């Protein structure tokens, strides 16, 4: 790892000032950044350790019924907060399906949004990668790409965003709070992450020096608490990134879907809000026929970026199963294997 200057500011303005210099990187949990630095994928000259900024590690209820989660709240603390898990069960389930207990004790809310793709060509500095080195080309195209994107990809980049947490968040209309040179601004999570186009190095709406200070969930997000699930297919039982995943949240009255939210993970360079599928679900009968139509709508624009056509059909099936799980109701207690298709949830098929 290249050496760097280490600065530990104690206030947000001091952090912004320290990071204003080009070549700076914020350090929070460090679970992704330090790994990238060890591989020479990222080589900051200056590391600004924000992990002790006191005001960023709180979970606050807002007067309007929403919730504000400080950017430094750790994944484990958020997932195991009983009130949070009750109100936003799919978010807690997604958090607990990600990484390991050790990593969840270090990784933060803000860092989760900013984690980089796990595309192996991005990590391998001997490979061509437009995200790492704009204009270099993309060795993933025509390479080992069975886990790459099937939605929103371009010839410049076929990488996926690896977050679980962001998938239910984007379904629930989460908003990112950003502190920058011009003060504080709010950006919806749906707009925050970008599709690659011809500039895959631009992954999100942050300007140099910008600091994520929190994530907000609007009051409405808690209205799905009785029927919300996250489902994630991995290549091993646990401690793996999603091949594909889905967050599904419903409000059902008299057998009809009154509100529906659906988002997909592991399929694109951003957490993928499936709005066309939500439109299909709205007002429809809450049954498998509607869910299959919704899954078809969600994947209508999908296309393989390589040896990954299987992910399109797999995602379709996972969408149906996530919606069936949501309809069956949020379990009173999370299964021992959160978000796993292998969990023994009554009434849920095991052949999705």
């Amino acid at each position: 790892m290249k050496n760097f200057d280490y600065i530990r500011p104690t206030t947000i303005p001091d952090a912004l000032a320290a990071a204003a210099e080009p070549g700076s990187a914020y350090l929070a949990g460090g679970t992704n950044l330090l790994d990238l630095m060890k591989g020479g994928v990222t080589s900051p000259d200056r590391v600004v350790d924000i992990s002790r900024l006191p005001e960023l590690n709180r979970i606050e209820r807002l007067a309007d019924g929403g919730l504000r989660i400080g950017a430094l709240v750790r994944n484990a603390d958020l997932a195991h907060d009983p009130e949070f898990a009750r109100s936003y069960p799919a978010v807690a389930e997604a958090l607990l399906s990600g990484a390991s207990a050790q990593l969840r004790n270090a990784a933060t809310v803000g860092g989760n949004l900013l984690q980089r793709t796990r595309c192996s060509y991005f990590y391998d500095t001997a490979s061509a990668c437009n995200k790492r080195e704009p204009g270099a080309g993309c060795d993933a195209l025509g390479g080992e790409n069975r886990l790459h994107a099937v939605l929103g990809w371009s010839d410049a980049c076929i990488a996926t965003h690896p977050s679980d947490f962001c998938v239910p968040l984007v379904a629930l209309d989460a908003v990112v709070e950003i502190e920058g040179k011009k003060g504080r601004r709010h950006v919806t999570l749906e707009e925050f992450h970008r599709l690659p186009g011809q500039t895959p190095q631009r992954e999100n709406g942050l300007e140099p020096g910008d600091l994520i200070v929190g994530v907000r969930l609007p009051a409405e997000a808690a209205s799905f608490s009785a029927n919300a699930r996250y489902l994630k297919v991995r290549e091993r039982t646990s401690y793996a990134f999603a091949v594909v995943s889905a967050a599904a949240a419903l409000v059902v009255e008299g057998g009809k879907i009154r509100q529906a939210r659906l988002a997909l993970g592991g399929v694109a360079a951003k957490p993928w809000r499936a709005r066309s599928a939500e439109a299909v679900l709205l007002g429809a009968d809450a049954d498998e026929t509607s869910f299959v139509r919704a899954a078809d709508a969600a994947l209508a624009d999908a296309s393989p970026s390589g040896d990954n056509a299987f992910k399109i059909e797999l995602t379709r099936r996972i969408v149906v199963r996530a919606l069936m799980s949501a309809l069956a109701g949020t379990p009173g207690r999370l299964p021992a294997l959160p978000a796993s298709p292998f969990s023994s949830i009554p009434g849920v098929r095991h052949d999705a």
Partner: protein
Amino acid sequence: MTKTTIPVHLDINGDRHTLQLEPRVTLLDALRDRLGLTGTKKGCDHGQCGACTVHVDGERVLACLTLAAQAEGRTVTTIEGLAREGELHPVQAAFLEQDAFQCGYCTPGQIMSAVACIREGHAGSDEEIREYMAGNLCRCGAYPHIVAAVRQAALEVQS
């Protein structure tokens, strides 16, 4: 740009140390190379294997993905700090009793993780133990015995 060393104050197993370190030194390398505490193992050095698991302020984290500077002012416990006055920690004893290792390289990380797993209340069933110990790989495949050791230690700690 000044790329020099910085003073880092560490509290390891109740002993205070002041080290002069380059900022890029991880907690894992500081423990092993500067303090001679080689019980904490370097497996993958990328946060994928769990061999470097230690406790910071009582919670399990990966020492390979923590800068030593990030641990300043925190309380760090390593495998060397687990036994009390020559008496093995119940989890250490259970690993011996259940033969929960073969080569032993992952064992310090497994034990540190298991101590935290039990303390967190995530050792209620074999399924739960497997899930909450998933961050610790064992290439010898001693998993069934590791689960048995965690189960036994969890029962002992509760009683």
